[in-house]
Each structure stands twice: as C-alpha cells, then as structure tokens.
C-alpha cells in the first residue's frame, strides 16, 4: 500500500515535469510569432506588389524620413542602413529594396518608448532604389535613396 502510493506520487511528479517542459518548448516560438508574418508581401516579386501587400497606401514623399546608406556599397550582402523618422507619431518603419528578387526587406514596429530609429544591415541584389516608409497615425510617408552595388548580395 505504502510503496504503491509513493510510486504513484513519483509517477505523477514525473508526468508534471514532462508537461512543463513541453509547455515551455511550445510557448517560446508562439510568443515571438504573435507579431505575425506577412507572407504575400515578403514573397511579392516586384516593389509595387510588395508595397501594396504590406498595406502601404497613398504614401506621401517626406524628407523627414532620414536614410543613411552608402552611395556605393562594395558588398551587396552587407549594406549598412540607418533610418529614422522625424514625423510625429511614427510607430513603424518599412524597408524595401526595389531591385531585389523579393523587394520587401522588413517591418520594424516601435512601441513603449522605442524611438522611430533602426540601424541594420541588408542584402541588395543590384544597384537600386532603397525605399523607407514610415507609418504615423495610420498614414504613410516615403523617402528614397539610390545605392550603387558593386557585387550583388543575394546569391552570396
């Protein structure tokens, strides 16, 4: 009787720890995935299609979006890009590289005190227009820069 109870308790505890491990294993990717991933926009094969699928409509040209990128990028596989927006209420920045096979590079959403600023590195397949879109109070603004690419970065 006594030994049976102990065995049962051990078995129960063991099943609990297994359940906890499974729950943890599942929780982490689900948390990160809560942001979603816009498949049609990322898989669009031209910049107009990508922009539309990303939900960007009637973007007004704006010099208040500051793009820092090299005029000539020797290595298209690692192009440093820094984008910031001085448009009040900016809560997202989207990056497009027009001539890439898939032009939509990424969406960066700022909340809870993050400045509308991102510095990163992207791949550019060819000499191309680099397009930065800012979202502010549900409206869209855009600025562009030309980047000459010496060695393309998508097949490398």
């Amino acid at each position, binding site marked *: 009787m006594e030994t049976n109870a102990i065995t049962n308790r051990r078995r129960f505890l063991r099943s609990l720890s297994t359940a906890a491990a499974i729950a943890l294993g599942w929780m*982490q*990717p689900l*948390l*990160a*995935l809560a*942001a*979603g*991933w*816009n498949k049609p926009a*990322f898989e669009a094969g031209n910049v107009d299609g990508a922009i539309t699928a990303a939900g960007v409509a009637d973007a007004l040209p704006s010099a208040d979006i500051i793009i820092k990128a090299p005029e000539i990028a020797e290595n298209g*596989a*690692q*192009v440093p890009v*820094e984008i910031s927006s001085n448009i009040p209420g900016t809560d997202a920045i989207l990056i497009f*590289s027009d001539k*890439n*096979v*898939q032009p*939509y*590079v*990424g*969406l*960066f*959403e*700022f*909340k*809870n*005190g*993050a*400045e509308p*600023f*991102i*510095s*990163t*590195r*992207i*791949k*550019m397949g060819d000499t191309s227009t680099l397009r930065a879109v800012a979202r502010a109070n549900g409206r869209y603004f855009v600025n562009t820069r030309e980047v000459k690419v010496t060695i393309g*970065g*998508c*097949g*490398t």
Partner: protein
Amino acid sequence: MARPIRMRVRLDGDVAEVRALIDHPMETGLRKDPGTGAPIPLHFIQNLTVSLNGKPVLETQWGQAMARNPYIQLRIHGAKPDDEVSIEWVDNQGEHGHASTRVPAQG
C-alpha cells in the same frame, strides 16, 4: 540548436542604446553548396522582438534580405539601470533564440 546573440546596452540619460548581433545564416534559398552543388534551403529569421522589462519595444517581421548574422541598433526611452533588455527570434524552420541582459549604470 543554440545560436549566440551578442548584445550591448549603453545608458545615456534615460535612453538605452541597444546593439545586437544575432548569429544566423539568413539563407536566401538561391545559394548552392560549393562542394555538392545542391541548393541550400531558405533559412531566415521571420520575427524578432526586443523587450524592456518584458514589454515589447521593437517588433519586427523580416524577409530573407536581412543580412547574414543580423545586426540591429535601437534606442529605448524611459530606461534605467538594471532594467532587463531581452531579445527573442523565430525563423522559418521553427528554430528560435533568446537572450537577455541588464541596462548598466550611466556611461
């Protein structure tokens, strides 16, 4: 498989400047294995989130055109020493990564 994340945080006033380098191949699916000639499958981070004390400050969606071993730099206002900065990511093959650090004192 664990892929390292290198993170540096600097506090200036109440602004935490975060720099992170995430170890990831970010394969475009266009490359071929130089030895065998076999295509290397598409493998890239799709979502990356940066949080301050558990609250998201940067939420991203990425395509395969983010560079290999992605680098990000961002600025978080309203930060103070000992706040926790954390990063988590998930890729198109279901791999994920996580790292966290504390905001240092001014300087």
